[in-house]
């Protein structure tokens, strides 16, 4: 999960860098095209994360100050 978070954050960061570097015009067209393709890939990745299906809520019980145990999943929302 941490990895996924990092990926999203990094993806956004990389994307920003790519857009600026292409916009700056400091890199050649060939490199620009490569970066463009990379940028599109990052956008797709981010969209996938944003459009992820809602996850089920996992229920946990605190046995004591140290122990959390799984207690199943919360029922789906009934309304809507």
């Amino acid at each position, binding site marked *: *999960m*941490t*990895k*996924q*978070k990092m990926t*999203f*954050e990094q993806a*956004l960061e990389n*994307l*920003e860098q*790519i*857009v600026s570097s*292409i*916009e700056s*015009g400091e890199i*050649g*067209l*060939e490199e*620009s*095209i490569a970066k*463009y393709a990379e*940028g*599109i890939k990052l*956008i797709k990745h*981010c*969209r996938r*994360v*944003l*459009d*992820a*299906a*809602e*996850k089920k*809520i*996992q*229920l*946990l*019980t*605190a*046995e*004591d*100050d*140290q*122990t*959390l145990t799984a*207690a199943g999943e*919360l029922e789906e*929302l009934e309304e*809507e």
Partner: protein
Amino acid sequence: MAILFDPNQAKGPRDDADVTGGESGRDVTDEFVGGRAEAPLTVSALVADVRRVLADGLPRRVVVVGEISNLSRPASGHVYFSLKDADAQIPTAMFRQAAAKVKFDPADGMEVVAEGRVDVYERQGKLQLYVNRLTPRGAGALELAFRQLAAKLEAEGLFDPARKRPIPSYPGAIGVVTSPTGAAIRDIRRTLAKRWPAATVLLIGVPVQGDAATAQIARAIRAASANAERLGIDTLIVGRGGGSLEDLWCFNEEAVARAIAECTLPVISGVGHETDTTIADMVADLRAATPTAAAVLATPDGEALRQGLLEQRRRLDRTIRTLYTQGQTALRLVRRSEFFRNPLHRVEAFSQRVDEAGGAVRAALLERAAGAGHTLSELTGALRWNLGTLAKRRGDHLARAAARLAGANPRHRVRYTRQSLSTLRRQLDLLTRGARRAGTVEVKRYERTLEALSYRNVLRRGFSVTRDAKGTILRDAAGVHGGQRIRTELANGEIRSTVDGPPAPKRKPKTTPPDQPTLFGED
């Protein structure tokens, strides 16, 4: 002074016995009368008598208003103090069980309403008020408790803004401490699904009101903190939906506040409605007005991110389109340029110069070595062929490059950036410069050849050149007359001689004929 019951009354039952004249008072008097007559009472009996009188004479429950003084809290958990007003005081005891139920922290000087019973502490023969309920006068007990705990935690620095941890922007997993059946989790879930469905929600179910709630909430927070790393929890939301002050009370309890303060995770509190502020809110890293607001604060705005991505996409497309157009324009310009329309031009120009040089050399040769023209023209031809080949070869490169450019598929055209075009240009420059250099070398070689073919070499082969006195080369015997002095140049040295025969008629000597190849053509 609102004294509902004056404890002083109970001090002297003996004195009052006659005065009160009540039913219980008479009973006591009767006993005393009996006691005075015969044997003295034991202390225990006396105190027991006093207790009985008190129990009979006073209501079971008294409510007293007074000020706390001399408060002490021994390790037993009981609380002792005196309740006093301007003129009187009464020792007061509040046992552990009762003390635990007091929300606020009683202290000296505090005006309180004490509820309890009056009795005698037998071991000291002391009249005492036994309190089972203590509330602050004026402010409500909860309100006072709140203020007291807030002041205490503030003094400890738990509300210090510097303690607040930042909330992760893109949480992978969010822990929620609330009731599994309450409105809070429903609101949180709905909000998260809308904003940041990528997050996993781990709900640690707890009761959020009632006696057991405080301890369970505190425990849940500690357990979440202890397992944060294992479960990948990034942020913890603690809260519940709206309710009365009493309903929300556990979020004002010290145990919950401390659990939040000690939690290793950033905690967002979301308790009740906008108007409710709890101690938990003050200790939390971020206070949300409601559980829904807590979910909002815990997550990035998915819709804004989507818009941001769209904008990035637009910027990318716009830029790449611009670059494409620029590349196309540059390509068109280059292709339309003189150089690309006629890539051979420069080579041809150069080739022409070579021709001119060749022509000049040839003219000089003809000038200086009349008759060598035949061989010269052969040589010139060879040289021309060589230069032609050279030029053609260079030209082919250019032509091929031009053809490659011309044949470039529009889809691939964009690859020919200005950069690559300029690279290509540079290469072509090098190519033509190379050709020119190579041409110069050719010319030099040509000159050397001509040099080698100069008439002196011919002389070495046994021929000779004869000149008249003026040094003009003699080409026609008819122009020579008797007595004329001539000089014949050989490979080595010269012969001076005088021509036999009749002297010349008076006329101008003949000029050089246009062509006399025979001299060199004989071998």
